[in-house]
């Protein structure tokens, strides 16, 4: 990675931290603590199940909200506030700017998830008093959640490169929702015909495949996650993000910054 991309990434990370994004961890910690303590009284027999389901769902949702909220402003905020001018008048290429922003936000989310993972395992230890080998699956589920974050970050950044924050948020959110049904959409397209089939199939493949990246329930029941799923998902996230970022670069390179 060249040094300019690295510096832009670290600056983006620093900006997120100083904007107090990591304070969400406090909310998360409170949630997990409350859940760990209360779950035994509210549910019967399924404390481990609930802690893993709740913990991973919370990690996922918190992270997606952060990814969208910060992502949508990554470019548009710099244009509005004109901080971008003094950056681009330096030997920084436009694609380096996009890449730096992407790595910066992704890095922030990875760090955030790391702390949350500690919280989930702490809660798990509290309710079940020991770890079983199937708890390793929780790490895999967390890894997949991070892959989801990377995709959402790329999407939010893409929209930010040409759209206002409100629309970027709406688009990114809807892509997340539709992406959760991606598999259903593909199944549904088989039942349609003609032009509708083309459109639906196109959408089903264009939309991020979040349904495959959600293994929370499996892991909560201690079921193993197959290795080839891990490999395929990793490659998919990489490829999809590259596609989206390339589109972002294409748009941003041509944009007149008024």
């Amino acid at each position, binding site marked *: 990675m060249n040094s300019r991309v690295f*510096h832009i990434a670290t600056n983006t990370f620093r900006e997120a931290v100083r904007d107090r994004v990591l304070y969400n961890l406090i909310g998360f910690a409170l949630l997990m603590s409350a859940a760990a303590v209360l779950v035994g009284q509210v549910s019967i027999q399924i404390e481990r199940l609930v802690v893993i389901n709740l913990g991973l769902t919370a990690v996922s949702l918190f992270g997606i909200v952060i990814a969208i909220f910060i992502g949508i402003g990554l470019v548009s905020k710099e244009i509005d506030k004109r901080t971008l*001018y003094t950056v681009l*008048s*330096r030997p920084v290429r436009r694609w380096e700017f996009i890449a730096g922003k992407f790595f910066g936000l992704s890095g922030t989310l990875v760090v955030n998830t790391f702390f949350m993972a500690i919280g989930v395992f702490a809660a798990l230890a509290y309710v079940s008093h020991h770890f079983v080998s199937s708890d390793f699956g929780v790490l895999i589920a967390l890894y997949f959640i991070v892959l989801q974050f990377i995709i959402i970050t790329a999407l939010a950044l893409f929209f930010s490169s040409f759209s206002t924050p409100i629309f970027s948020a709406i688009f990114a959110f809807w892509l997340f929702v539709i992406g959760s049904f991606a598999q259903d959409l593909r199944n549904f397209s088989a039942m349609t015909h003609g032009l509708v089939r083309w459109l639906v199939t196109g959408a089903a493949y264009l939309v991020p495949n979040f349904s495959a990246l959600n293994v929370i329930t499996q892991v909560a029941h201690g079921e193993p996650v197959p290795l080839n799923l891990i490999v395929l998902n990793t490659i998919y996230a990489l490829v999809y993000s590259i596609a989206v970022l390339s589109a972002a670069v294409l748009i941003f390179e041509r944009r007149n910054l008024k």
Partner: protein
Amino acid sequence: MPAIEILGLEKIYNAGFWRKRSKRALRPLTLAVEEGEIFGFLGPNGAGKTTTLKILMGLVFPTAGSARILGMELDDPRMKAQIGFLPEQPYFYDHLTARELLHYYGQLSGVDGKQLSPKVEAVLEQVKLSDSANVQLRKFSKGMLQRVGIAQAILHDPKVVFLDEPMSGLDPMGRREVRSLIEDLKARGKTIFFSTHILSDAEALCDRVGIIHHGELRGVGAVAELTAGVHGKVEIIWQGARVPDGIRTMGAECRAAGETMRVTVPEENQDAALEALRRERLRLISVVPVRSSLEDYFVAQLDAPVKSEAVSSQS
């Protein structure tokens, strides 16, 4: 080789939802700035100064024409490493302190790691912000932001410095500091291109100026040359409190200053005025030519009809 070479640069914006309304922000502009010059780019607000600068910085893409800086293309990173830019009413990452910002920008400009810290300190000293170096930029006043802006523009020792309204938002002390900074930069052999609508600054600093209005360049040249073309005035001072009839009929305003009266009249009326004084036996104290100011030239240019209107209607 000129430091800045602009050839027929043009920018047309297509506004409106269906992109049908077109607005000419910049008519074909041709201009050259030599190395070591201080060049002032003058014009009222909305004239196209900022558009020109943005095109030079690669923020906006021209509809036609080209430009080179230090002989290199506008998107060449080697060129960008040797220029500095201060935008109008700058705003910086407010979560950073001044020192952090300059370090960040220095890294982006490719300043060598070991040299970065001393350079940052030196430039902070130069803009007199050393005391506030660790304060977050969100707490900076407008004048302080302006000074940070200048600091980041010169940090990496660029050969050409572009300043968009560098004096805006500064108090008289600040403006004087900026002025001396610009002179200092020139003394170090840098080329400075700055835009402003404050003519007195331009008059004081610039070797050459260019005047732009409605996106069109109306005049380029050394200040003295430009103002020479405009008819001058003379200031006549005499003793006493009376205004001779001959001068009164000229319609010029006479002011009393202590025991003397003074009036400013156009050059061609000089002889008639002196004659009027002599007839009334008033004692002449001095006759001093008043150089026409750049402002006069400026206003004259702005009133002139648009030259390229005829041309553009043919294209």
